[in-house]
């Protein structure tokens, strides 16, 4: 704290109390968006652009026992099939921290799951291909085998345990559409 007398620039119109609150602020970009003439990321096309599709876990907690991407990698149009360990060589895991709570941090989170998945929808592999059709699926192209782990039973959530039991041993095939 300083004992100097407060020196302030005169307030601009926008700095006045309630200048924005409750007011509709003009948005000049709305017309373009309403006419379908915006430019969203999915509208961008770049030279030699490739498309990626993530293969995601249908289970909330499971061990990845094997990933066989050999067929997928041979499919026409497929540039790469990337798994967690392969990506970990170039990307360090993300660790969430809070600047106002020193010492609190999340467990390391890999960009693509390594050995086990911890949530439904977690990426297990990424298929990169020259066309979006080639990176999503129609022809069988690979196998992922997982063992769903039995979660520790939270009180009053018997269904979770039952659900996990039914999904205990799981295998699913991932798909790659031929271009």
């Amino acid at each position, binding site marked *: 704290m300083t004992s100097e007398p407060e020196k302030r620039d005169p307030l601009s119109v926008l700095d006045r109390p309630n200048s924005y609150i409750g007011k*509709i602020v003009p948005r000049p970009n709305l017309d373009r968006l*309403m006419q379908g003439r915006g430019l969203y990321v999915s509208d961008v096309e770049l030279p030699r652009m490739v498309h990626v599709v993530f293969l995601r876990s249908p289970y909330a907690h499971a061990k990845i026992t094997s990933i066989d991407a050999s067929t997928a990698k041979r499919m026409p149009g497929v540039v790469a099939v990337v798994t967690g360990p392969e990506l970990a060589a170039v990307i360090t895991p993300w660790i969430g921290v809070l600047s106002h709570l020193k010492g609190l941090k999340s467990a390391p989170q890999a960009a693509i799951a390594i050995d086990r998945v911890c949530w439904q929808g977690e990426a297990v592999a990424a298929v990169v291909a020259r066309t979006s059709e080639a990176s999503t699926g*129609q022809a069988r192209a690979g196998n992922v085998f997982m063992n769903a782990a039995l979660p520790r039973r939270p009180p009053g959530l018997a269904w979770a345990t039952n659900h996990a039991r039914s999904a205990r041993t799981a295998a699913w095939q991932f798909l790659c559409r031929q271009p």
Partner: protein
Amino acid sequence: MTTAVAISLVVNGEHVEANVLPRLNLADFLREHLKLTGTHVGCEHGVCGACTVRVNGDIVRSCLLLAVQTHNATVETIEGISDSGEIADLQSAFRERNALQCGFCTPGMLMAAQDLLKQNSSPDREQIREHLSGNYCRCTGYQAIVDAVESTARARAGRTA
């Protein structure tokens, strides 16, 4: 499935001839072949409504329709009904009410709202919500969207009265 099929259709008043694979859906055809990227692809399985377009006057999910199914059809997209001025009043009501944030759902919203207003000149808020219930807005701006559709209905009723 890998042989292209010749189709001929009218898109936004323009004749279009194209050779498309039978598996190509209408949304991808509009976006990738015709570069009409106002038709958005959200969920790609008919849930979100972002890809809503008009085919022979009816609104459809263009992600659930194959391009080959539109052979000899008339297709209208957000670009077309914007340029024709058909929804100019609806768009200005959306602007006035700030009924969009990111705008990704808006082309589909406008398509569905215009469809309702053509069928029912004075819908109540419940009917508006019901008709727009297949269009998701993840910025959660439904209140303002319903307001904008309601005020457009009132204004149009006033004009014809």
